[in-house]
């Protein structure tokens, strides 16, 4: 048995459609069987509510008198992209205020507008014969715009990695606060309630499908940017009318130390047309797996710690290397439920009709990394391989002599086996000489916690280490912890100038 979309829409119009949320579907299928569920259920609603950085809105302001071609546009001091047309701009959710930094951004402007608050528009232009005006300032409400159309390039990830942090310092990321030494795990996504988790083969999700977006009826434009269905990481490009949206389902947010983002509510109603829809909507949190990855490693391909199900993540704790680690989500499951429930109400009341995709996703598409024609230099390319070292048993005076002779300010300190155990600087030696006490040997004055780098580390990461620790040199060590070079701020300075050519 199969059901046509017309059949389902007729039932919706007549108010007879049986609508359930994706959370209820597994039990229904378990009880009635697949055929029974297909007969009984007409629509399954899904929902998710989480941070979706890749969001924003096209705004049309209307023409001024005399007219202006707005080249640079700010709304409440947040710059919108004006390179679209005379009085159009695209306001990105993550763009930050020029005056308030990460406490206010594009997402906040959008939330202010849909909450009925006014925003200040400023724009500048060179002035042309057809658009002579050069500046404009105005205070606008959402209703003053001709158009305010949300177009989100990348929403509702099918799956997203969970995050932890193996380093010894707290990280501030788009996955939230990650405590040192894998002290917590953060994750995102509504699990079995998520739209794409309920249609993993993109059978009923595609271009033209009506959805819930930010409290309004929106539409799937097509595959989202960076969508990678072949690896199970599909995304949606969505659109909807900002004027119909609600601050209940669009919320500005700031991740401290990372920046502004926007929480968006997205829900897709899935017409139960055939057994494939029944099977895919019967998914449970236990069946949905993701990977906990280590955000402490500053590379594109971060190491996987382990596979984990959404059921485990939602339980509040997972086990990593035999230890229990607390989990928390960045997306709101309560709000995801609200999205799915609201959408259920719309279908039941007949205020939304369903449609089949006018274009299906390309399930073979996979995202690839950027083709970099000019690679980031590695530490080995700029380090100084001539290193003057000292051992921990030598007197301080020997360190002074070596610093002078080596014309350096940093001496890595080695133990008798030649492994790095500390570092002394000109300052340490000067201090020891100026305040003579019983500290006579290098080991008495050296710093034991040495910040180090490796030859294959990107110089950007080494530079970040220098900055963060407020130091000016890093010993370069091989895997055995033998010093094979030094990287100083001076070496990094040599890179400047050629960098952007």
């Amino acid at each position, binding site marked *: 048995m199969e059901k046509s979309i017309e059949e389902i829409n007729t039932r919706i119009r007549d108010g007879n459609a049986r609508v359930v949320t994706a959370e209820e579907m597994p039990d229904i299928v378990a009880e009635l069987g697949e055929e029974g569920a297909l007969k009984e259920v007409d629509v399954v609603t899904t929902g998710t509510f989480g941070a979706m950085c890749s969001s924003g809105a096209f705004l049309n302001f209307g023409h001024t008198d005399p007219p202006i071609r707005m080249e640079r546009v700010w709304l409440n001091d947040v710059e919108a992209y004006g390179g679209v047309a005379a009085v159009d701009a695209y306001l990105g959710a993550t763009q930050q205020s020029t005056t308030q930094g990460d406490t206010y951004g594009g997402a906040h402007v959008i939330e202010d507008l849909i909450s009925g608050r006014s925003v200040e528009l400023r724009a500048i232009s060179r002035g042309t014969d057809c658009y002579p005006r050069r500046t404009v300032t105005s205070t606008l409400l959402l209703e003053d715009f001709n158009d305010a159309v949300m177009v989100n390039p990348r929403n509702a990830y099918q799956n997203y990695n969970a995050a932890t942090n193996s380093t010894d310092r707290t990280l501030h990321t788009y996955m939230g606060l990650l405590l040192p030494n894998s002290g*917590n795990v953060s994750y995102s996504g509504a699990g079995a309630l998520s739209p794409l988790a309920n249609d993993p083969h993109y059978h009923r999700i595609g271009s033209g499908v009506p959805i819930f977006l930010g409290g309004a009826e929106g539409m799937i434009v097509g595959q989202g940017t960076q969508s990678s269905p072949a690896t199970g990481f599909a995304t949606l490009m969505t659109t909807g009318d900002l004027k119909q949206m609600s601050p209940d389902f669009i919320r500005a947010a700031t991740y401290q130390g990372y920046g502004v983002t926007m929480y968006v509510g997205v829900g897709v109603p899935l017409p139960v047309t055939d057994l494939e829809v029944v099977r895919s909507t019967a998914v449970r949190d236990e069946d949905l797996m993701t990977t906990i990855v280590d955000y402490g490693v500053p590379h594109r391909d971060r190491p996987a710690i382990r596979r984990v199900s959404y059921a485990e993540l939602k339980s509040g704790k997972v086990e990593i290397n035999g230890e229990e680690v607390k*989990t*928390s*989500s960045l997306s709101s499951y309560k709000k995801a439920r609200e999205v799915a429930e609201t959408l259920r109400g719309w279908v039941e009341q007949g205020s939304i009709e369903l449609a089949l995709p006018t274009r299906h996703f390309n399930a073979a598409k996979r995202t690839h990394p950027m083709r970099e024609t000019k690679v980031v230099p590695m530490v080995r390319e700029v380090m100084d391989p001539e290193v003057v070292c000292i051992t921990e048993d030598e007197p301080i005076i020997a360190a002074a002599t070596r610093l002078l002779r080596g014309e350096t300010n940093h001496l890595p300190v080695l133990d008798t086996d030649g492994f790095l155990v500390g570092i002394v600087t000109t300052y340490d030696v000067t201090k020891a000489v100026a305040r003579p006490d019983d500290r006579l040997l290098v080991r008495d004055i050296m710093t034991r916690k040495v910040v180090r780098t490796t030859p294959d580390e990107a110089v950007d990461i080494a530079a970040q280490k220098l900055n963060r620790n407020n130091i000016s040199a890093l010993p370069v060590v091989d895997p055995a912890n033998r010093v094979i070079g030094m990287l100083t701020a001076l070496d990094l300075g040599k890179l400047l100038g050629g960098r952007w050519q």
Partner: protein
Amino acid sequence: MKLMVSFSKKKVREPIIARVVKDTGVLINVERARIEPGEGEVLIDVPNGSADEVSQKMRDMGATVRVLEDAIHHNETECVDCGACISICPQDVFSFDDDWNLVLDQKRCVLCGRCLQACPHGALSLLR
């Protein structure tokens, strides 16, 4: 019960906590201490039955004592019940109820302030 003890260093030169423990025999758990050049603030946990006695002793020595009830202000309008605060709290103040509403166990809070940093929606603040 949690008590917030504040004192100016000028006024209080004595080791207040040690003195109170010695005099009353009440075991005091220091959960947090902030000592500045001129003043200090210590968050202590004492058995409920001994709170009055301890408070009185400390006041007699010149400190200000107040019972800490609601340490964190949770703005429910801003909060979206995401739960970003849950795993970073060292005291397990935050959790979800059965309906995925965020709930707070204020009594556990030691005012570390980490949740303020973790909340993406600015829904948490410390009551001073």
